[in-house]
C-alpha cells in the first residue's frame, strides 16, 4: 500500500505541474490578446507572429488543463446516480473508467499525435503567413505531450481509487475546488 500512496502523490504532482504551466499560459494569453488589440488600435501596429502566439497559448491552456482538471475532479459528471453511491462504488467506477476509457484514449492520441508532430519537425514546418511563427512542430508536440499527462492523470485516478477502496481516502474530501469545477 505504501508504494501506491507514493505513486499517487507523485502522479498528482505531475498533474499540478501541468496546471501550473496552463495557468501561466492563461495569464500570458490574456495579456497577449490585450496587447494586440491596443497595438492595432492605438499604434496601428499588427504582428502576425503575436496573433499566432495567441492561439499557441490558448492551446496550452486547454490542453494542459485537462490532466490538471482530472486530478482536481474538475470534469463534469452526470450525477443522476453517482452522488448517492458509496465511496466503494464510486471508486470502482473511477478505477474501471480510468483503465478502459482514459488511458487507452490518451494512448491513441499520444501515439498518432507523436507521428503528427514528428512529421512537422522533419519538414521544418512553419506558418505560411507573412511574419508568422516558425517551428510549428513545437505547438503540434503539445498534443502528444498532453496525451502522456492525461495518461498519467488517468493512472492517478486509478491509484486514488485504490486508496479509496483501501479506506485511506474518500471522495467527499476531494470534492472539486469548492463548487468551482
Amino acid at each position: 500500500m505504501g508504494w501506491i500512496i507514493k505513486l499517487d502523490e507523485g502522479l498528482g504532482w505531475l498533474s499540478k505541474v501541468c496546471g501550473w504551466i496552463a495557468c501561466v499560459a492563461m495569464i500570458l494569453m490574456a495579456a497577449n490578446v490585450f496587447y494586440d488589440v491596443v497595438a492595432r488600435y492605438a499604434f496601428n501596429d499588427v504582428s502576425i507572429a503575436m496573433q499566432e502566439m495567441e492561439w499557441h497559448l490558448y492551446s496550452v491552456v486547454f490542453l494542459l488543463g485537462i490532466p490538471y482538471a482530472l486530478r482536481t475532479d474538475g470534469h463534469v459528471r452526470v450525477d443522476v446516480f453517482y452522488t448517492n453511491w458509496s465511496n466503494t462504488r464510486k471508486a470502482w467506477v473511477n478505477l474501471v473508467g480510468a483503465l478502459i476509457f482514459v488511458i487507452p484514449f490518451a494512448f491513441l492520441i499520444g501515439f498518432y499525435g507523436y507521428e503528427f508532430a514528428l512529421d512537422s519537425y522533419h519538414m521544418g514546418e512553419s506558418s505560411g503567413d507573412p511574419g508568422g511563427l516558425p517551428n510549428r512542430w513545437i505547438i503540434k508536440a503539445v498534443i502528444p505531450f498532453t496525451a502522456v499527462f492525461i495518461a498519467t492523470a488517468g493512472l492517478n485516478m486509478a491509484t486514488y481509487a485504490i486508496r479509496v477502496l483501501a479506506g485511506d481516502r474518500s471522495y467527499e474530501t476531494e470534492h472539486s475546488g469548492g463548487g468551482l469545477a
Partner: protein
Amino acid sequence: MIGMIMFAAALVMLMLGFPVAFTFGGVALFFGVFAQGMDLFAFMPYRIMSVMQNTVLMAVPLFIFMGVVLQRTKLAEQLLTSMGRLFGGLPGGLAISTILVGALLAASTGVVGASVVAMGLISLPVMLAHKYDKRLSTGTICASGTLGQIVPPSIILIILGDVLGLPVGDLFKAAVWPGVVLIGLYIVYILVLTRLKPETAPPMPEDPTRSRKQEIVAALIAIIPPLALIVVVLGSIFTGIATPTESSALGGVGAVVLAIIYRQFSFKMVWEAAKDTVSVTAMVFAILIGATAFSMVFSYTGGDYLLEEWLTMLPGEHWGFIILAMLVILILGFFIDFVEISFIIVPILAPVAESLGINMLWFAILVAMNLQTSFLTPPFGFSLFYLKGVAPPEVRTVDIYRGIIPFIAIQILVLALIVVFPEWFGMSATY
C-alpha cells in the same frame, strides 16, 4: 447503424457518472476500433489541431477569466443584487437581472461555452444564496447563457450563411427580433411563475434603515462599475476596436482593473482566478474533444450517409416539409452537435425548401432557433454539461435537466410563432 448503437451505449455509460468527456471519448474508442481499426484515430490529432486553431473559441477561457475575477472580487454579486434591488419588492428580480446580463453577454459573443460558464460563475451562487429554486436558477442561466447563439454575432448564423449562401449581414439583421422576443418571453415567464409560486424566487430583502429612494440611488451607484465593464466589451465590438473574440480579453483585463480600483486586487487573487479558469476551460474543451472523437466515429462508420438516406424521405409539400424538417432538426439536436447538423442535414433540406419557394432567410432563422435549442435539450445538451461543471455539488444534473424544460417550451413557442407569423418578425415565409 453502428452510429446509432453508439449513441445508445453512450447514454447508458453517462449515467454511471464517469466524467462526460472521457465517456464520449472511451465509447467512441471502443466502437471506432471495433468497426475500423486503430488507424481511424490517426485523424484525432488533426481534429484536436482544428480546435486549437479555431481562434473564435479563444473567447471561452477569456470570458471565463472575466467571470471568475468578477466573482472572486464580489463585483458580480454586487451587480446582480443591485439590479435585483432596483426591481424592489418584485419577486424574481435576480432572475430577470440574470437574463438581462445574459442578453448583454450574448450580444458580445457567439460562443455558448463562454457565456453559459461565465453566467454560471457570476449568477448561480448569488441566486442560490438568495434562496432561489435550484431549477429556476439553472434553467434561467442555461437559457440566457445560450442566447449568444441567436443574438448576433453568432456562430450558428455565420455557418448557416456559408452553407445556405446567404449574406451574414442579412442573417444578423433577421435574427434580432426573434432574439428580442425570446428574451422578452423569458422575462414574462419569470414574472408569471413568481406570481404563481413566490417561494421559488423570493424578493430581495429591503434594508429597513434606508428609504426606497436611497436604496435606488445606492443600487445605481453599485451597478455602474460592472456594467461599465460590459459596456466596454460591447462597445469595443461595435466600434471595431476589437473583434468579438478579442473583446473577451478586454473584459478579462477590465475585470482586473476593476479589482484594483475596488481594492480587491492581489496577485494571489489573479493566480487563483487563473487556476479556476484553467480548470473550467479544460472541462469545456475536454467535452469538445471527446465529442469530436464521437462524431468522427459516427461519420466514418457511415452514420452521415445513413442520415442522408433517411432525410430524402421527407415530404415535398410546404407545411408538411417545414414541420417535419423542424422536428427532424430538433430531434437530431438531442444527439448531434450543431456544426454537423448545419453541414450534413441543412444542405439536404435546403434545395427542397428552395424548390418549394420558401424564403431561405426565414428558413435559416428557423434552423438557427432550432439549433440553439439543441444546446439545451437533455441528455446531451452541452450548455447543461457546462453549467453542471461550474455548479456547486448540491445542484444535481437532474435539477438542471428539469429546470430547462420550461425554457425549451418557450423556445418552441417562439419557433412556432416565427413559422406561423413571420411578418411579426419582419420576414416573409415565401419570396
